[in-house]
């Protein structure tokens, strides 16, 4: 909006602008402070050595040393990476295979299939029938149980379809057809290269979802520790602390707890690095994705 440069402002507008900035700065602090605190605490010798100014009294890498020795974390890391890459590729393929035919005006069953897809957005079997289904399919305790149930998000598919219908002119298909180009070749050499922006957006949606999910893993691979994704390992470390330390005397106990706390902060940082590191670069894509979705409603 370019109407803000009006020179004369009335008093209430001035008050508003001052309040506006004040609230936003407050918000900035409220959001950023805990994030920075976590990072700084992971470099401290213990939460007790943290000062309110975010600079630890004793700088220490002990937390990270403990994390690097924790084998489960690295197995989890690897599993999460595999799930994320494999799952995103499968999801993108699935989404494209659905969105492209449905974006074609001349594809006869498009309305019928569209309804078939949309029904699943509003009705679902629920937790137990889905679990039993995976069990009956023999997928329980396999990696596929973590990847397949969410392989196609109808919402993402509709967003993609909208993009294909609005951003790629139909004339291209007509001239390609005249040149003897078939559907498959058209999809591979025209549609996919032309829809890179949308593939980036929904690819990121899928990837972040796969990286962060823990509930599916808890349900579907509970008895295969070697398949535990990072999120599930984190749950054990951060949430379910095993506390069989009753026999120790108070001082040892406190020291041990301090060390565990620092390690937890380090774990939090290590686990969030992949997503947080790419986030500033892809932020624009996310915003775009939300907007395309919003336009469609």
């Amino acid at each position: 909006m370019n109407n803000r440069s009006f020179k004369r402002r009335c008093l209430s507008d001035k008050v508003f602008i001052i309040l506006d900035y004040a609230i936003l700065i407050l918000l900035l602090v409220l959001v950023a402070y805990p994030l920075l605190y976590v990072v700084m605490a992971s470099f401290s010798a213990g939460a007790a050595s943290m000062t309110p100014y975010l600079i630890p009294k004793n700088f220490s890498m002990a937390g990270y040393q403990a994390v690097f020795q924790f084998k489960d974390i690295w197995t989890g890391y690897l599993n999460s990476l595999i799930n994320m890459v494999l799952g995103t590729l499968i999801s993108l393929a699935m989404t494209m295979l659905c969105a492209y035919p449905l974006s074609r005006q001349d594809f006869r069953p498009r309305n019928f299939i569209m309804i078939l897809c949309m029904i699943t957005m509003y009705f679902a079997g629920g937790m137990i029938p889905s679990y039993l289904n995976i069990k009956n399919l023999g997928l329980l305790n396999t990696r596929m149980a973590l990847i397949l149930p969410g392989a196609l998000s109808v919402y993402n598919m509709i967003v993609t379809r909208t993009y294909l219908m609005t951003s790629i002119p139909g004339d291209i298909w007509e001239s390609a057809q005249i040149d003897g180009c078939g559907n498959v070749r058209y999809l591979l050499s025209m549609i996919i290269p032309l829809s890179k922006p949308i593939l980036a957006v929904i690819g990121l949606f899928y990837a972040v979802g796969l990286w962060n999910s823990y509930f599916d893993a808890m349900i579907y691979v509970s008895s295969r520790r070697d398949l535990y994704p990072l999120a599930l390992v984190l749950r054990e470390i951060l949430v379910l602390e095993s506390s069989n330390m009753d026999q120790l005397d108070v001082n040892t106990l406190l020291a041990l707890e301090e060390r565990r706390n620092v390690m937890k902060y380090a774990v939090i940082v290590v686990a969030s690095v992949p997503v947080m590191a790419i986030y500033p670069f892809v932020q624009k894509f996310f915003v775009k994705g939300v907007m395309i979705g919003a336009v469609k409603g």
Partner: protein
Amino acid sequence: MKNNSVRKTKQARPSLAKDLKKNWSLYLMVAIPVAYLIIFKYIPMYGVQIAFRDYVPIQGISGSEWVGLKHFEKFISNYQFKTILWNTISISLYQLATFPLPIILAVLLNYVSREKFKKVVQMVSYAPHFISTVVMVGIIIQFLDARSGAVNMLISALGGTATNFLAYPEYFRHIYVWTGVWQSIGYSSIIYIAALSGVSSELHEAAIIDGANIFKRIWYVDVPTIRPTIVIMLIMQCGSILSVGYEKIYLMQNSLNLSQSEIISTYVYKQGIASSLPQYSYSTAIGLFVSVVNVILLIAVNQITKKLGDTSLF
């Protein structure tokens, strides 16, 4: 999907067989996702009927005995029913009450003229959205720790007494909702920021000439323009009142706060999967109960907004 109905009217539709022959590759493509939907979405939907049966795995779905509404009655007469339902609804409504916050943030950002400052606020406030649920709950637990948590250290420094907040049921919903706001306020505001960017600047100019101050412009220019977006988001939230974010709540639960933190979905998980004697039919019935209530609410809210002359979802 309005363009669905736009068809070339003159051209007669080819018969299905002809179309199949001509566009066989399109059918082949779409067959894969359709097969996926049938296997992973529609078969579980068919499986919902075990809510009305006494499901025994060996006998299969259709082989198990039909018992009608037995499991629903069992749930409703359960001594925990009222507590769980109330916990679910109260947490959900509390969360719904924070619904305007992202809108307010979007409006505030809209009147910031320093682009750089705006970018920084957006960038920082979106960041928590990308923290995973497990890590988020880990942070909550660490911060609220009675001895070494940042919050309690601050309280002690200010002369208060440290409290193990997660051990007190009465604090649970506040912690859940406000950490949720912390995590999602920025990201949820994106959609409103997008909608606000569509407000025509001519309207604002006209309003300024007419002597409207910013408050008036927000109320009479901005809000009416983004109203459809607000209504749609509101309907969608109302449609999921009985399914609050169980992934986060499950992790925040402990034996001390369970009296206010047990919600329907976590109860379903505990009865149906985590239990050593899983009650498949019983927990499916509860899940179905939730879905039905959600759909009813969605339709009801949708009808109300339609009556009020506003946007509706369908």
